């Protein structure tokens, strides 16, 4: 960003100082006759530039400029006219009445000047709405089969765009598209195939036929071949069909095509398939291997980049290419070299690591940040694979940390180090030391606070906690407010965990009570006061493990509390819990396969419960249920797919009640359902006390009905199964208007059963310092039992199942079982309905099957009992 500006100031960009109002003023030149061609071209360029810079042009100004521009149709100058087409396209959505140029464009697309025809088609399709499409349909159909390739291509690609809004009209052009597929021009054939596929896309059988047909009739265009491979891949993926499918045979046969592009596409497709085995992979890998020694850098790059990916999932398959990859280490193209080395790192043996690392260090400074990140990730996965090599890797990573590099690069390194520390306890101290050194001179606040958070969590539990204090305290003196605040919190954790450090920590925190920043001061004051109580339980709850409520929920609850002043103090237990502690949410490392986008949706999911809470609060029947404790995360499908009605169930748990929410959709367009409810019956003492019907369910408009159930008085009776029936009044209606008849009749529809499980009564809560919480809850309600999990043949299976049954949060990364171990301890934490902490320690031993010694602690005796019963 900064660089861009500099270049502009240097005069590199003649448009740098463009002003919208001046340019629009200049656009009036278009009205003058005779037309000044060069000048007008220049002004059009400026308008295009402004629009592409994201400059907002109001409708009135845009329309004025647009109409002025239409007058340029007087000139026959080719360049000017083509600039006009471009501007029409860009202004199509910001100006009014753009259809004014319809006839002019139609004339150009059917005229004699070939240079006008293709771009006129593209512009025309951009300004055409559904009502206009009829009028130009005839011309477009002709253009698709035009003998001028550019015209045909333009018509085909434009059709694809039009199909987004007018699928039905475009479907009628299938014959023309069919004809164009047999064109001898590679682009036309490719575009025509694209359109043909698009038209048939939703018809699986037709697509299958399409692929089979063209797979046989060898197509001329390599582009079309590539597309066909992609279509075949999608079919394979959607059908979940195996490698014996004719689709796979087709893709495989493309490995022997004469065009490199097609060969690469096929190889790329095969290596990216989900269930490929070594057998299918081998031929694909061997063509990539050939490409590795191609004289064309693009092919070498493509090959090594793909091999790099394969190496993550099938390292063994890539080993065959090791020799070729070795040769690429010295490739003049550094991107290729980097990918080659990182691939080798993934496939190579432990013994080759030192050599490769040395080699890569020699040119680290020459490659871009983007590729440095690739290297960092390779190093990270190597650490996971060869834990014994962690010290070399750590050294390497830490020297990278010291080098120049942007935020993303530094973040990747820090992520990797943290990830290694968490996976491998032996690497912890070295890793923390490197990170301590890094924050001494770190310009990225986000990274500094993240590392401080980590130091606070891990540091106190190392053999020599005191050595971290200095690094942390330095931050308190030297850094910005947010870093100081993070440092204060980290310090407090040392005080809370290590008794011998507490006095000195209190002294240090006292100093921060004079800080200039409110947040820092408040935190220091809070921690000093908690620490001075000298109570382990307080330290655990308020310093080591922290707040576990949903922040949005807390904000809402507090707001509500201030609106209706009450005598009794605010009860934190009335606030819904966060599904994950906030700090974890923000900092969770992004794995190699995940994209940041995936993370974003997770954040939304975390506040899903807050949305439910708001919706439920609006239903008067639920006014006295108390705070919402938990909403189940995945809706249960209570109907098969593609039946008349679709019903999904979400369970909302309250202190003594449960609300079943049914999201219903009516998929029949000739019916309207009214007064829709779901009747539920259970053999146990679960009593339905209220129904909130969905008043009306028109076709395809989802509606909600609720069923309110009171939980039995016996606190240990928490699980049951409900039979469910959808009840409603049916009224027939006219599918076109949706207006129902006056008379209806009652009807019902049987749904799948809904189970109520132990997991529905508990909310996951992460305890960053499990041991402290364990002591905090104490032995009072402890229950212990031993179980033989005879169906569990491996520890990871047992761990997975226990977590699922109990619905608790695994802590201390105990959900991961170290490879080759036959004992494991799982730590789980959560809160039971009613706000009782629940902690579980499950010691497992693998013999033939898994035996588990389960210890449950809770602040409530019944909660312990229920949790133990989840396994029994």
């Amino acid at each position, binding site marked *: 960003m900064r660089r861009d500006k500099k270049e502009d100031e240097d005069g590199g960009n003649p448009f740098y100082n463009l002003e919208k109002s001046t340019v629009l003023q200049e656009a009036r030149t278009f009205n*003058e006759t005779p037309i000044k061609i060069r000048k007008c071209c220049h002004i059009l360029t400026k308008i295009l530039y402004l629009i592409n810079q994201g400059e907002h042009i109001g409708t009135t100004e845009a329309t004025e400029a647009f*109409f002025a521009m*239409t007058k340029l149709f*007087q000139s026959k100058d080719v360049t000017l006219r083509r600039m006009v087409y471009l501007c029409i396209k860009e202004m199509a959505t910001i100006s009014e*009445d753009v*259809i004014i*140029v319809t*006839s002019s464009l139609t004339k150009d697309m059917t005229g004699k000047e070939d240079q006008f025809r293709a771009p006129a088609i593209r512009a025309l399709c951009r300004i055409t709405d559904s009502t206009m499409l009829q*009028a130009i349909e005839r011309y477009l159909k002709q253009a698709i089969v035009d003998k001028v390739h550019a015209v045909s291509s333009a018509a085909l690609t434009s059709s694809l765009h039009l199909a987004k809004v007018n699928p039905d009209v475009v479907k009628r052009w299938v014959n023309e598209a069919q004809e164009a597929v047999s064109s001898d021009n590679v682009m036309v054939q490719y575009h025509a195939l694209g359109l043909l596929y698009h038209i048939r896309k939703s018809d699986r059988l037709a697509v299958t036929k399409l692929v089979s047909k063209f797979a046989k009739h060898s197509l001329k265009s390599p582009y079309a071949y590539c597309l066909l491979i992609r279509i075949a891949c999608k079919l394979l993926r959607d059908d979940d069909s195996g490698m014996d499918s004719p689709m796979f045979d087709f893709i495989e046969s493309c490995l022997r095509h004469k065009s490199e592009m097609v060969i690469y596409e096929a190889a790329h497709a095969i290596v990216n398939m989900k269930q490929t085995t070594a057998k299918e992979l081998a031929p694909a890998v061997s063509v990539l291997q050939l490409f590795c020694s191609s004289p064309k850098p693009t092919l070498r790059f493509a090959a090594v980049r793909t091999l790099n990916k394969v190496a993550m999932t099938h390292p063994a398959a890539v080993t065959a290419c090791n020799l070729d990859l070795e040769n690429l280490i010295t490739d003049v193209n550094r991107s290729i070299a980097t990918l080659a080395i990182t691939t080798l790192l993934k496939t190579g043996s432990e013994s080759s690591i030192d050599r490769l690392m040395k080699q890569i260090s020699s040119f680290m400074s020459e490659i871009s940040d983007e590729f440095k990140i690739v290297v960092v990730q390779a190093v990270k996965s190597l650490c996971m694979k060869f834990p014994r090599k962690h010290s070399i890797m750590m050294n390497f990573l830490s020297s990278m940390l010291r080098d120049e590099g942007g935020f993303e690069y530094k973040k990747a390194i820090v992520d990797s180090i943290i990830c290694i520390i968490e996976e491998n306890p032996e690497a912890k101290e070295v890793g923390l030391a490197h990170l301590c050194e890094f924050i001494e001179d770190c310009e990225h606040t986000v990274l500094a606070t993240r590392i401080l958070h980590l130091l606070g969590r891990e540091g106190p539990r190392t053999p020599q906690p005191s050595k971290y204090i200095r690094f942390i305290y330095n931050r308190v003196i030297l850094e910005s407010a947010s870093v100081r605040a993070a440092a204060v919190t980290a310090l407090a954790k040392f005080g809370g965990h290590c008794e011998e450090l507490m006095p000195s920590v209190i002294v240090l925190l006292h100093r921060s009570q004079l800080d200039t920043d409110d947040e820092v001061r408040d935190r220091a004051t809070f921690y000093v006061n908690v620490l001075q109580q000298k109570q382990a339980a307080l330290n655990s709850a308020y310093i080591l493990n922290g707040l576990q409520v949903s922040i949005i929920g807390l904000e809402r609850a507090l707001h509500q509390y201030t609106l209706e002043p009450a005598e009794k103090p605010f009860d934190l237990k009335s606030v819904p819990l966060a599904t994950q502690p906030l700090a974890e949410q923000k900092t969770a490392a992004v794995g190699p396969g995940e994209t940041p986008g995936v993370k974003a949706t997770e954040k939304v999911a975390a506040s899903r419960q807050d949305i439910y809470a708001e919706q439920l609060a609006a239903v008067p029947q639920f006014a006295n249920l108390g705070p919402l404790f938990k909403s189940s995360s995945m809706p249960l499908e209570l109907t098969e797919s593609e039946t008349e009605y679709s019903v999904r169930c979400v369970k909302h748990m309250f202190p003594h009640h449960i609300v079943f929410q049914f999201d219903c959709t009516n998929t029949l367009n000739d019916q309207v359902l009214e007064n829709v409810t779901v009747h539920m019956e259970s053999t146990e003492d679960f009593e339905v006390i209220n129904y909130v019907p969905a008043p009306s369910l028109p076709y395809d408009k989802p509606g909600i009905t609720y069923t309110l159930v009171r939980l039995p008085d016996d606190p240990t009776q928490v699980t049951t199964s409900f039979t469910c029936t959808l009840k409603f009044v049916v009224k027939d209606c006219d599918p076109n208007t949706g207006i129902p008849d006056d008379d209806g009749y009652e009807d019902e529809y049987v749904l799948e059963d809904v189970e109520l499980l132990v997991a529905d009564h508990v909310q996951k809560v992460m305890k960053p310092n499990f041991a402290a919480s364990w002591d905090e809850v104490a032995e009072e309600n402890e229950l212990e039992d031993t179980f033989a999990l005879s169906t569990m043949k491996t520890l990871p299976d047992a761990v997975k199942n226990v977590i699922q049954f109990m619905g608790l949060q695994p802590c201390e990364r105990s959900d991961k079982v170290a490879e080759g171990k036959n004992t494991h301890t799982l730590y789980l934490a959560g809160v039971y309905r009613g706000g009782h902490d629940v902690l579980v320690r499950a010691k497992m031993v693998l013999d033939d099957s898994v035996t588990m010694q389960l210890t449950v602690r809770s602040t409530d005796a019944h909660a312990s009992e229920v949790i133990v019963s989840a396994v029994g």
Partner: protein
Amino acid sequence: MGFFNTLAQWLGMKKKNANVIVIGLDNSGKSTILNKLKPEESKRHDIVPTIGFNVEKFMTKALSFTAFDMSGQGRYRNLWEHYYRECHGIIFVLDSSDKIRMSVAKDELNMLLNHADIVSRRLPILFFANKMDLRDALSSVKCSNMLEVEKIRDKPWHICASNAHTGEGLEEGVNWLTDQLKVVINQ
């Protein structure tokens, strides 16, 4: 080419350009008339209802014309005004067999005459009472009565019956317009 153009102009050989706007209700024959006026090589065989506008060029003995052939359909008529300001003259085409819509044409004419970009200018207006070949076509006199063309005092106008298919009447009209414009443009 550029050199030749200027040389030609200097010698007074090149024809001056005049911009006219061609308006009138839909289906009155505007596009057909212009097509007839165009040189043989750029004629089109199929005339379809215009959407928006088209630019057409044609020559007369003294002038070269650039004509904005506007769309006459109701919903596009409000777009005509964008092209008023730069035009030197107006061609208003009537379907002389469409008696029912004569009053609509009259409304449009009045709107044109009262438009801010037109009202105070001495623009020549040429009326074509087109489709004279049809059996129930009104005479040009009848048309001008129905439109109350006589009331136009501050602008030169002329009306002639025409048949766009044969070209009958077109030359007469265009010659009148040329004579009117020659004076203006050479000033």
